[in-house]
């Protein structure tokens, strides 16, 4: 098999996975040209990542909820409400930031467990249970902000979560235009990926499994390194890596690992693929439901923290329509509406795609009404592509 044949076959086989990256690339290229490069500027990309943080973490949690054939409509206002709780405990109660964050995350988990209790114990469809949650948290948010209206958060370390950047190395003379720690982390990440890929390839060869040819492997590595290099360079050109980006990155990595490499992940996909068979294979469907909704609640809390911190305040409309953005991002990212299929990395890309569209169209000065229509069309196109390529896979 020649190099190109192998390349072409790999591409065809994985078109579902690569399709979204290609779409993202096309969208980014289009906006870069249409805005004379402003879209790709360090400042704009950095901004874009910070804007999508609170949707991205929701989309990751929503991925698992959709995979096990449920839905959670309550997460938007839950995020808003928990953001308000954070604001109140920070300002009126004067609690330390770390304690507030831990407390709010735990409250999120409890809220998620309460939802799944309705689903598991009383057999209420998740759509209905979380629609009730949507109403309840919306009311709770309004009550929390009733007396004061918007609650301003005058706490710098809390606000840094949504607005701040990681500190730089104390070397003012070396590469003054760039953020050195960001570059260093990028290099470290690239080295780590290269080594882990090589070691995984060696293990596979030791087991006598088929692996892609050397050429393909090297190209893939070069491509990955170049991609990390480009992102790092762009971010280093502004203020470096933001705390939001760090959080999203960590959440993605943890969830990616959990879903692809562990017991728990396998069990979640098994329940989504066929819950009867999963139950009879010794997997507790109820337990998985609790875990998935619990994690969703926690990520809703995290989303609320990110959003409150970004606005430096809790508002009466915080969280409005977040759940819809998260669901859209997950579907754009390849989650199957029939359940059992969907990757957290896909949903992250989905969130970036949707945010790039808004951001790019904003830069072009396109009216918000048109923006909604374009995003709706993209959502439909993404799902059509997904369904079409799935059929081809058979």
């Amino acid at each position, binding site marked *: 098999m020649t190099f190109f044949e192998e390349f072409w076959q790999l591409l065809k086989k994985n078109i579902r996975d690569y399709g979204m990256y290609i779409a993202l690339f096309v969208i980014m290229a289009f906006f870069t040209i249409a805005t004379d490069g402003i879209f790709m500027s360090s400042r704009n990309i950095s901004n874009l990542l910070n804007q999508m943080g609170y949707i991205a973490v929701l989309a990751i949690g929503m991925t698992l909820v959709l995979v096990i054939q449920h839905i959670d409509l309550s997460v938007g206002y839950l995020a808003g409400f928990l953001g308000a709780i954070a604001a109140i405990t920070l300002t009126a109660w004067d609690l330390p930031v770390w304690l507030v964050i831990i407390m709010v995350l735990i409250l999120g988990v409890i809220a998620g467990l309460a939802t799944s209790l309705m689903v598991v114990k009383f057999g209420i469809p998740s759509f209905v249970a979380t629609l009730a949650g949507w109403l309840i948290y919306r009311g709770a948010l309004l009550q929390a902000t009733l007396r004061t209206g918007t609650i301003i958060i005058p706490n710098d370390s809390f606000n840094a979560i949504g607005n701040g950047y990681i500190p730089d190395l104390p070397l003012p003379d070396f590469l003054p235009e760039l953020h050195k720690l960001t570059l260093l982390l990028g290099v470290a990440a690239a080295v780590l990926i290269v080594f882990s890929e090589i070691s995984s390839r060696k*293990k*596979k060869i030791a*087991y006598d*499994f088929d692996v892609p040819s050397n050429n393909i492997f090297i190209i893939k590595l070069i491509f990955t390194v170049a991609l990390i290099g480009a992102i790092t360079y762009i971010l280093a050109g502004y203020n470096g890596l933001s705390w939001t980006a760090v959080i999203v990155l960590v959440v993605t990595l943890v969830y990616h690992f959990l879903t692809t*490499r*562990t*017991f*728990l992940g*396998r*069990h979640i*996909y*098994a329940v989504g*693929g*066929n819950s*009867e*068979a*999963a*139950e*009879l*294979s*010794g*997997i*507790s469907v109820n337990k998985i439901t609790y875990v998935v909704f619990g994690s969703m609640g926690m990520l809703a809390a995290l989303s609320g923290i990110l959003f409150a911190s970004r606005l430096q305040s809790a508002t009466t409309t915080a969280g409005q329509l977040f759940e819809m953005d998260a669901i859209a991002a997950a579907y754009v990212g390849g989650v199957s509406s029939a359940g*059992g*299929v969907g990757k957290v990395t896909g949903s992250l890309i989905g969130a970036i795609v949707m945010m790039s569209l808004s951001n790019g169209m904003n830069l072009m000065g396109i009216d918000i009404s048109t923006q909604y229509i374009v995003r709706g069309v993209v959502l439909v196109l993404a799902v059509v592509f997904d369904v079409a390529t799935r059929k081809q*896979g*058979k």
Partner: protein
Amino acid sequence: MSVPILVMKNITKEFPGVKALDNVSFQVEREKIHCLVGENGAGKSTLMKVLSGVHPYGSYEGEIYYEGELRNFKNTHDSEIAGIAVIYQELALVPEMTVYENVFLGHEIHNGISININETIKQTIQVLEKVGLDVNPTARVKDLGFGKQQLVEIAKSLSRNTKLLILDEPTSALSETDSENLLNLLRELRKEGVTSILISHKLKEVISIADKVTILRDGESVVTLDGHNGEVNEDILIKHMVGRSIENIYPSREHKISDEIIFEVRDWNAYDPNRGRVILKDMSLDLRKGEIVGITGLVGSGRTELALSMFGNPDGYRITGQMFLHGHPVEFNNPKKAIDAGVAYVAEDRKADGLILIQDVKENITLANLGRISKGGVIDENVEIKDAREYTKSLDIRTPSIEQKVVNLSGGNQQKVSLAKWLYVEPEIMIMDEPTRGIDVGAKYEIFLIMNRLVEEGMSIIMISSELPEILGMCDRVYVVSSGRITGELPIETANQEEIMRLATD
């Protein structure tokens, strides 16, 4: 001689990577019962899908003449209008609707825009009489048993003036009596001018009913035999189906049964709160090391319920009674506990309860015992691939790769994946619920060989089956179940079909 009702000429149908039908010709005479047999994957269902328009005109090569005319069905609606009806294994009824609503679904009797319910019910009663089904037309379909649902489905097709009725393995989920009734119905319909094409794996049934038999193998039509001049018998059919003769359908084994009772159930009662009635009454049974014990009975007699109640009770029955493993009392609150104790359950309906169809072979095999391939909850992919390949090889699962999605495999190979999954947990006791349902002769034989190997290695098997020859051919002992009670226990030496049927209808 009149024009044949159906002539399919040189049909070729390709799917990506496979030629499902290769130049098949198939001819059906008017007012006959024509059986279509072949192993799974031989192309029977594909041929019928080409005929009925599921695979539309243009997606296949060849010509279809129906009632002497060249027809190009673009969808199932076209073929329905022409008078062709297909009844699949998975019934196309709406469970929440009534019998009469189902029978006239899609061609409702109406005055203007409102449905004429009285007329509908009247005509439903007529057509139900035709199929010999005595139920209230206003009953909900979900409250009927499977056999009756199937008759509703046939009634539905008759209400549309069907001339050619195609039944895809209609009896595979039916008890002996229900099957017999269904076959009699086909004979009745034949008198009234309805031609039937019957796809079946049950050769005895084919021999008893067929006017003609066509055998397909690997997408080609091998031969068409006449059912009336004595040239059709089981040996000949099997020989044509597999391309070789199988000396004995039930392979022999060395019996290594020890006296040690490994598993025992005593005074077992179960109440199902969902159905609001007692489903198992005072059942007691035991199982020895190295033994295959059969449990048989009619559909609905409580065989599967018994298995589930012993296997961690996932449906939440209220159970009284005792269960012993190696003489120690045990209690399984969920399937996981049963699995951990060394009990496996190969589900009756592998698609609904056994496999995750959208996942690949590898993930299905390791699902019930991920602990074997992981450390601290993290799965070692390489060990998983290695193990999955081993099991795929040792059970001879025919799949392009272990990354193939299970949904794309044939029934026999799916069943082997289901078996592999349970062998992967290395159980001591395996409960196999209808292990050969809907799979072909060749694959059955292989499953039996595997079962023999397992008991020779010291495993014990409880085999639930409604196929009496299979029970008699494979088991060392058999329990007969009727209406939730054990009505008899027979050593295999004295068991015969008549005695079992007598106990099963007790």
